[in-house]
């Protein structure tokens, strides 16, 4: 098959960017979208042009490195799929495809399609953990966790941190990412002692970098792991509760 790629090229954070158009023929249907870029880059190198920079690593949809806005959608048209798992058979022969980087103030552009997503690390650092120094843990089976709760926590924990939610959000909000990280831990019994501090600190850090959630639901649709915006609602509830909680008395339910 044949495709026409229009790709954002920008030599560095301060450089002027522009779209470049490349025609590729003899594209195989079994190619992944990233392999299409491999072929494009081989071609560019042969011509003496610098290859397109793009983030990628595991190429099996779990590391969360890939970050391409394909035809106006993060990770492209197929729902629940990261760019590396998107295959060319999903495109029509002769398709014209436009690719640009994630755009958000908190994700400064590094080069071409590569952005810096360190802001996510800052959010996790501010509270996305359970303080459990190595060696201090009791036997794993001392903490009983209902299967349904473990499953819900796992649904949230499946987040790969790719940033598609931010890229998709008309407001560049990171609420889906943050909610997934917060609720993974806040749902579990082990996460209870730090529950209110965690949600407060992580949300406050998030808001230093990102926009606010206006409930478009675009993040959920873009998420390669199909994480539900239900977690955003749960985070909102925990955050508001945390503001009214007397934390010294937090163990008193009610």
């Amino acid at each position, binding site marked *: 098959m044949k495709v026409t790629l229009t790709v954002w090229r920008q030599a560095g954070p301060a450089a002027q960017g522009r779209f470049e158009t490349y025609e590729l023929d003899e594209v195989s249907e079994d190619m*992944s979208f990233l392999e299409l870029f491999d072929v494009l880059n081989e071609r560019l190198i042969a011509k003496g042009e610098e290859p397109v920079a793009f983030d990628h690593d*595991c190429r099996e949809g779990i*590391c969360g490195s890939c970050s391409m806005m394909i035809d106006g959608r993060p990770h492209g048209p197929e729902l629940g799929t990261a760019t590396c798992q998107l*295959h060319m*058979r999903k495109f029509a022969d002769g398709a014209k495809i436009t690719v640009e980087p994630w755009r958000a103030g908190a994700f400064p552009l590094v080069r071409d399609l590569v952005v810096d997503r360190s802001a996510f690390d800052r959010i996790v*650092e501010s509270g996305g953990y359970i*303080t459990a120094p*190595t060696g201090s843990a009791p036997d*794993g089976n001392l903490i009983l966790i209902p299967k349904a709760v473990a499953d819900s926590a796992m649904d949230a*924990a499946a987040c790969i941190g790719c940033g598609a939610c931010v890229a998709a959000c008309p407001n560049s909000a990171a609420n889906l990412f943050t909610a997934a990280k917060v609720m993974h831990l806040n749902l579990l019994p082990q996460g209870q002692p730090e529950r209110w501090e965690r949600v407060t600190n992580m949300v406050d850090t998030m808001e230093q970098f990102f926009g606010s959630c206006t409930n478009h639901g675009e993040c959920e649709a873009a998420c390669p792991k199909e994480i539900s915006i239900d977690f955003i609602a749960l985070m909102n509830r925990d955050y508001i509760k945390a503001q009214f909680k007397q934390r010294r008395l937090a163990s008193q339910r009610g």
Partner: protein
Amino acid sequence: MVMDAHIPEGPIATKWDNHKFDVKLVNPANKRRFTIIVVGSGLGGASAAASLAELGYRVELHTFHDSPRRAHSIAAQGGINAAKNYHNDGDSVYRLFYDTVKGGDYRAREANVYRLAQVSVDIIDQCVAQGVPFAREYGGLLDNRSFGGAQVSRTFYARGQTGQQLLLGAYQALANQIHLGNVELHHRSEMLDLVTKDGKAVGIVARNLMTGAVTSHSAHAVVLATGGYGNVFFLSTNAKASNVTAIWRAYKKGAYMANPCYTQIHPTCIPASDEFQSKLTLMSESLRNDGRIWVPTDAMDTRSPDQIPDEDRDYFLERRYPAFGNLVPRDVASRAAKREVDAGRGVGPLKNGVYLDFADAINRLGRHVIEERYGNLFQMYERITGEDPYVVPMRIYPAVHYTMGGLWVDYDLMSNVPGLYVLGEANFSDHGANRLGASALMQGLADGYFVLPATIGNYLAPQLGEQPVPTDDAVFIEAQQGVEAMTQQLLGVNGTRSVDYFHRELGKIMWDNCGMARSRESLEKAIGEIATLREEFWNDVRVLGEGDTFNQSLEKAGRVADFLEFGELLCRDALHREESCGGHFRVEHQTEDGEALRDDEHFAYVAAWEFTGDHANPGLHKEQLEFEYVHLAQRSYK
């Protein structure tokens, strides 16, 4: 030279406890006076950095990823073993130890493996406390499954994303320490050289991948947790950026490379579909619990698989290994599949796979059960191949997956270079010639959470009061100049071929000659071809752009340059090991029915290779392996 692993005295069950008592300790208040550099943020690196920082050491962590969470440990699917015996099926520390030594085809160090089995139980506790959402029974207790040929259920898992969840646990502990200021994180920072002074590791030289800046970092000790070198084969299940550079450059600074020829081929990967294939995707080994592997009896059979009746199918694993059937260890299953494909009975458009068929399981258990067990894997398969595995059998073929070899380390995980510690897949220590399923995660976390924090004091304690070597010392300046010179050299070749071209060519040489079956002839051929290719690389590679910007071609070029050297060492090691064991199969050494034939009399040792110069043959050092507890026997899975 005979290598001394410093294995503690005493019965195997008490070695680790005795040793922990014997090691020198650093007073809690003095720990902050020591700086430790950790390179790599996978299970080993992240857990080590977090645990060392919790103890009070100052830690500097370098990862070439944009976030520590993206290290390739994240892609492990199946699970993590621990000798908890929660299932009352007769598991014990000793059994896990025994299975690991046996599974490793008697080429692992007993004392290390026993310790690994011992701390495996603590790992699970630690991870649960961190909030890793392991699968649970309805009563709220931890669930287990049997995995990769083990006859007990000792594998803990979190859906098909166990590696991801364990890494996130370690990453979160690390994030906590970063937040507290105990760990300094350098992201997109690639280690390009180890710096040694008076034979000791004193720091590293790293390149900031975003700005191209090359800087020196000094510390009291350096910890490498930089993963395996499977990408020397180009096509593997490793992430694209996984590489040998950190341990290779340490090797060139004096660390010994041990057993590089032990490479694990994983039997259940999706076969390559065309020449553009950039990596291979693993399908969890757990699929073999319910899937049956077969090929058509007649190589010319062109019927679609569902039209082929049972009598025209060859369930070759069940036929040859009635006791274990489809659940034989990875190396055995892989070689059996290769044999069928080599005989022309492969399936698929390129005839490069065998069927993994769930029709019987679906009939027996119902589609919904299979969907619940493997839904996400089936979906992944469907996405990649465009075929629905509920209807058409999956096609699978072995692919390079894990490398048991790595830098040589002693019982304390310290290499022969004092102050240089090596963890996880980057070291050689615990899996012998073949790794059992769900043991990689266990080793990475054992090393990082429990072993290194206990042993590193032994090296650091006597250095109390000494400052790290300043980064303006001649050794740093020289190393930094070396790195910059190599960058300029790569940029300066200005040839005609891309880096990927050379990587692909190297991969072909390695896979064809040093893959699942090796012979003296093929290995000698490979060594010659690699040397030619290496020369061609340095004369004809084209690396565009500059050194002082974000430049992915340059990053790749450095890594491929190292693979081109390392591949030769791998072949040399394979050539010298005149036996077949685990992930190393020499066609000259097999039993009558084609199984691996070990030579315990001559090769029950660890081969540790010393760098002796760019154009000199590497020097061989041996660490003799003693088997006091697990008696050497031919593995049999019949």
